[in-house]
């Protein structure tokens, strides 16, 4: 006969107001197997827990029911208390009589609440009688991390992990790390040069003995689970031997073919063998195969002739590298809404309509104009520039419904840069609202308006068109109530931040969630901002949604600290709620194998004495199994059960209904 103790919590008046806790406890005493029952004001308080522990010892209890709040609240607390009193923690079950009883049934006569609490407690008691002691599962952890994306968030995460003494691989799609931040000229609100603060970090990442850079590489496949991921990485062919290349740049100089530079957003040309920008890390050029005549037509090959260390190989192929890692950080960043979407703002028709990012390149000392503001059509210095904010953001019909968060700030920065570089120029900004929440952000915008003479006009632009070599911008100034028309030499659109192309495919490989804009979902928007629903995979930066550099860096560090704490022990413990196969009755129909969302079920060979395989049976990999129980319901021969939620336990609860 089991020896069960029932503890009914009053939760002050939270439960006791609508449930007669004493009566519930008294009723439970009459049930077979219950040797102890009482009610108490606050079970979770330390005197409450002490009482629980003493009762376990005094009454030699082998099972405990706490009828209190939701198990999501205090299941851990009470299981821990039981463990410290020498009871297996999984012999403790919680009945939810607060969130799902006293708080939702307001009957002051206590009739309905008491009846329901007694029913629920009785069901849990019957269930508990079928419980079996369980032991936590221990899984070894591979102390190596993979960071997907080598932008500022990824670099920061990798540096922090490496500083913590753990090996990290950065997987970057482009030929160089640096991400979008490498494109920026200056950064708000301090106006320090983006390259000057970023490149030291890029070099530090390259030189760190614990960091390996896989540039020009993409994630092919992800298998495994927390602590034990197996990741296949496609290292796209650079056609240049990274080991031997000295980065002299002779090949780039001599290459006779030019195409539009993606890094410079089409504002200038680059060679077919190229590094995206002068400070690229690693400083190894790659050949743009679709545009290379040697690779496509077997003509040219100049780069290979001039290369001193002879490191160019036109026959090089993609390599798939398999890496085992314990944790993955996803920091894949963002891209901008394509300018082509903004026909009404003249993009495509008018050459002098550019995006904010293109303006960054114009203002950047390493950009196509060497840092001089010159308009794309004729290279003249623009005397007036119109900035249009919210191009695509906060516009559900044409673009996206969210705010891109950084545009208000970078537009203010652009007006400042413009006034510093073109002294007599006039800038105009069409805005919906100024969102400058952040340390020193509001002051920054005020500075742009007050010191740098930016003319802010609250309203939307209706039309942008060309007349006599001028760009005319028509719009509303809602503060004065007038229609305005501005003659501009250049128009800059603050285009919306959107998720990267292929963000959804990567999410599916990692089995993490994403929203309708394909931004990745954090586990909890407030309390678990860098975790995902898949244990061992963390997020950082703008792959989750628009954010600025400080936020991205902070998240990179946050994700790194999560990885380091995961790696702080050699083994990690897991809840033992996993499926288990009854080998006697399993008839190898493999329904479980196809049903399992995690591929946690394997075919296990059964050998006879001679070592000959006689049959194959299902076997659960405890490390991979997440305990969903889909296989249990799928099994035709009832040969799989789920620990903690066995058929026996569930039927016992139903029978006590």
């Amino acid at each position, binding site marked *: 006969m089991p020896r069960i103790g029932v503890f009914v919590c009053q939760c002050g008046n939270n439960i006791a107001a609508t449930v007669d806790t004493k009566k519930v406890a008294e009723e439970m005493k009459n049930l077979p197997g219950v040797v102890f029952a009482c009610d108490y004001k606050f079970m979770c308080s330390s005197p409450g827990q002490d009482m629980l522990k003493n009762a376990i010892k005094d009454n030699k209890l082998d099972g405990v029911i706490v009828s209190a709040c939701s198990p999501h609240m205090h299941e851990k607390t009470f299981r821990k208390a039981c463990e410290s009193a020498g009871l297996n923690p999984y012999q403790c079950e919680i009945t939810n009589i607060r969130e799902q009883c006293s708080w939702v049934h307001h009957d002051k006569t206590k009739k309905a609440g008491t009846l329901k609490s007694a029913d629920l407690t009785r069901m849990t008691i019957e269930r508990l009688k079928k419980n079996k002691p369980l032991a936590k599962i221990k899984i070894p952890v591979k102390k190596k991390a993979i960071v997907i994306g080598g932008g500022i968030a990824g670099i920061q995460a990798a540096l922090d992990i490496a500083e913590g003494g753990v090996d990290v691989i950065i997987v970057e799609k482009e030929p160089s790390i640096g991400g979008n931040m490498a494109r920026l000229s200056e950064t708000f609100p301090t106006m320090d040069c983006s390259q000057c603060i970023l490149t030291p970090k890029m070099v530090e990442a390259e030189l760190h003995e614990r960091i390996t850079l896989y540039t020009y590489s993409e994630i092919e496949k992800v298998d495994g689970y927390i602590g034990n991921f197996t990741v296949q990485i496609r290292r796209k062919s650079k056609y240049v031997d990274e080991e031997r290349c000295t980065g002299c740049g002779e090949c780039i100089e001599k290459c006779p073919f030019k195409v539009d530079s993606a890094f410079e957003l089409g504002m200038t040309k680059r060679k077919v063998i190229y590094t995206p920008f002068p400070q690229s890390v690693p400083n190894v050029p790659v050949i743009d195969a679709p545009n290379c005549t040697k690779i496509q037509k077997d003509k040219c090959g100049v780069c290979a002739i001039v290369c001193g260390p002879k490191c160019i190989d036109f026959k090089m192929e993609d390599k798939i590298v398999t890496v085992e890692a314990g944790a993955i950080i996803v920091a894949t960043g963002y891209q901008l809404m394509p300018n082509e979407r903004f026909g009404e703002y003249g993009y495509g028709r008018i050459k002098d309509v550019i995006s904010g990012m293109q303006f960054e390149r114009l203002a950047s000392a390493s950009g196509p104009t060497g840092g001089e503001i010159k308009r794309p059509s004729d290279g003249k210095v623009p005397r007036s520039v119109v900035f249009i904010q919210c191009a695509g953001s906060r516009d559900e019909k044409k673009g996206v419904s969210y705010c891109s968060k950084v545009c208000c700030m970078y537009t203010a920065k652009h007006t400042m840069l413009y006034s510093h570089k073109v002294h007599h120029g006039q800038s105009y900004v069409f805005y919906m609202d100024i969102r400058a929440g952040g340390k020193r952000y509001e002051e920054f915008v005020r500075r742009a308006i007050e010191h740098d003479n930016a003319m802010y006009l609250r309203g939307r632009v209706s039309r942008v068109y060309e007349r006599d070599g001028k760009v005319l911008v028509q719009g509303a100034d809602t503060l004065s109530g007038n229609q305005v028309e501005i003659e501009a030499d250049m128009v800059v659109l603050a285009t919306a931040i959107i998720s990267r192309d292929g963000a959804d495919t990567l999410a599916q490989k990692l089995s993490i969630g994403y929203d309708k804009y394909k931004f990745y979902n954090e586990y909890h928007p407030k309390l678990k901002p860098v975790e995902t629903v898949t244990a061992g995979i963390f997020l950082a930066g703008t792959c989750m949604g628009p954010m600025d550099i400080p936020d991205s860096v902070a998240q990179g560090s946050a994700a790194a600290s999560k990885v380091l704490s995961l790696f702080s022990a050699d083994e990690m413990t897991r809840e033992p709620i996993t499926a288990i196969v009854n080998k006697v009755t399993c008839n190898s129909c493999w329904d479980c194998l196809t049903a399992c*969302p995690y591929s946690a079920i394997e075919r296990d060979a059964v050998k006879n004495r001679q070592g000959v395989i006689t049959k194959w049976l299902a076997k659960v990999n405890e490390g991979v199994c997440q305990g*969903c129980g889909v296989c249990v*319901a799928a099994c035709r021969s009832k040969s799989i059960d789920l620990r903690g*939620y066995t058929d026996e336990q569930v039927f016992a609860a139903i029978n006590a*209904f």
Partner: protein
Amino acid sequence: MTEHTEQTESCGFEPKIMAFVCNWCTYAGADLAGTSRMEYRPNVRIIKLPCTGRIDPLFIIKAFENGADGVLVSGCHPGDCHYTTGNYHARRRWIGFKNLMEFTGIDMRRLHFSWVSASEAIKWVDLINGITDEIKKIGPFMEYKGLKEKASL
């Protein structure tokens, strides 16, 4: 059956409804109804499972056998499953099982399937109230209870 239910039955029929819910969405949604101090009919008894995909159709039969007047199965919305695809398995099983239950003559107003997310406390409240009121109208589930009594004779 306990003496309680018999008492309440004498002063008007109070149906007993069994709900099989998943731990991550609907259980949390029902918790949220509590934390938000919403009110709903006290007729439902919840059995928590990790996922709706864990639900064996036999659970539902057993619930009816033990005196349930209605059964509810509820979990994460399609695409939101904590275990990525568990609720799809539940949905597919449900479609097959529903037809079988209908064939055996069970009034389908007694058997419900729904998606309630962790933030849909209101939906949970409306769902329970709706089902309870509907079953109150159609009365206790005597057919099955009768069968069970016959079997025990």
